[in-house]
């Protein structure tokens, strides 16, 4: 039998993907920079481009939060399998799409296409949840569950159950908010931002979840 690839290989790839995606966010700003400097009224041109700067900040927070959350749990994975590897690759796929999402958001705000810009950004933001949910379910079906390191602080089975519930809620929330973007793009954008802000401290979020799991036995 060919052995599974080590977890460290996937983590190394993730470092490259996250670094490149996070740095590519600036390309839009560089492009806008040359437009601003060649404009007749510098300040007016700058003010008119505020969505590009806001989208950059949001995109940065999104990628940094995903990276933090990814490693908060990633440090406990002991073994890979093809389902887990492809779930990770899908995560990288969504991360590499974020600069695109940020770009259409930056250019779409305050235009008649704003609804679609917010819609596609939302699709990229929430696409990971249903796929991860499916991956955990399939891993349990085929391999009996996730393989975690011995120092993982909670029963793996209970963790899987709560993760699937949490991912299910996120998927429904994401579906509703992304659909809302077609009716009220600003409200959807605020709800996206709340989602991103809530996920900025994954270790304490997970610790609260672990306490809850422990209470439930």
């Amino acid at each position, binding site marked *: 039998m060919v052995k599974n690839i080590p977890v460290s290989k996937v983590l*190394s790839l993730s470092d490259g993907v996250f*670094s490149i995606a996070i*740095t590519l966010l600036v390309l839009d*700003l560089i492009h806008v920079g040359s437009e601003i400097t060649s404009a007749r009224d*510098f300040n007016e041109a700058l003010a008119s481009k505020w969505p590009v700067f806001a989208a950059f900040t949001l995109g940065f927070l999104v990628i940094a939060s995903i990276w933090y959350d990814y490693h908060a749990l990633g*440090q406990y994975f002991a073994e890979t399998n093809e389902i887990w590897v492809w779930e990770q690759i899908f995560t990288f796929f969504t991360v590499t799409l974020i600069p695109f999402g940020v770009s259409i958001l930056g250019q779409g705000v305050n235009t008649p296409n704003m609804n679609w810009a917010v819609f596609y950004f939302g699709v990229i933001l929430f696409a990971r949840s249903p796929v991860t949910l499916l991956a955990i379910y399939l891993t349990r079906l085929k391999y009996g569950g996730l393989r975690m390191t011995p120092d993982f*602080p*909670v029963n793996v089975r209970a963790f899987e159950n709560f993760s699937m519930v949490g991912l299910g809620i996120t998927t429904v929330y994401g579906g509703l908010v992304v659909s809302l973007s077609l009716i009220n793009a600003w409200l959807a954008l605020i709800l996206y931002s709340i989602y991103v802000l809530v996920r900025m401290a994954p270790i304490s979020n997970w610790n609260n979840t*672990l*306490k809850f799991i422990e209470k439930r036995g």
Partner: protein
Amino acid sequence: MNNRLKDISHKLIDSLSDGIFAIALTLLGLEVVSLVPEISRSEDVLHSLQEHLPVFSSFLLGFVVLFSWWYSYHATSQYVLNTTVVVVWSHGFTLMWVTLMPFAIAMLAQTVDTPNLKWGVFFFSICLHGQYWTNLIVGGLGMIFKVDGLPRFAEDFPLDKEQVQKWIFLSTIVFSVGGILVTTLSLFYPLVSLGLCGLLILSTFNPNQGFGRILSRSKKANSNG
């Protein structure tokens, strides 16, 4: 069983930051590369090169800034053993300023010798000092929410926790206030402001020396106290 997820390893931030620094440094070259068709087609290549001197000097400035930051970052981070949410987000926002540096450099290069120079210097100064402001905000939020902000340091780290806290607090306040003054000054005297930015960059050239000064002052303060 300790029912808590452990904080992520500091090595993960190191790997991410190495990637971001490497790409940001390389992106600085975009502005220079974009000049090639224009320069190569001009009748007088040397004159054309001279015309675009601001682009080349801005590239050099950006390269020195990013490389100094990378050096300073690793000079201290080699002693850090773990992370906290404050450490992760302080580093995260510092990396945001790293990714913004190619934008600031492009703005600077395109506004030199134009009436908009003050805005080019203004944005460059924001990106140069931004990390101190975001560190102050993240640290302040950490204090408000009573989160333990300081990580654990290696045994060979020459300062104790209280001294580290004191120096981080002092340097963040001084550079934040200095940054606000220099950035505001750029709107009135852009060249003076740019000169002051240059002094800040020069002061971070050799982080080991700066760190050594902090150490000797701390020892002096301890022996006096």
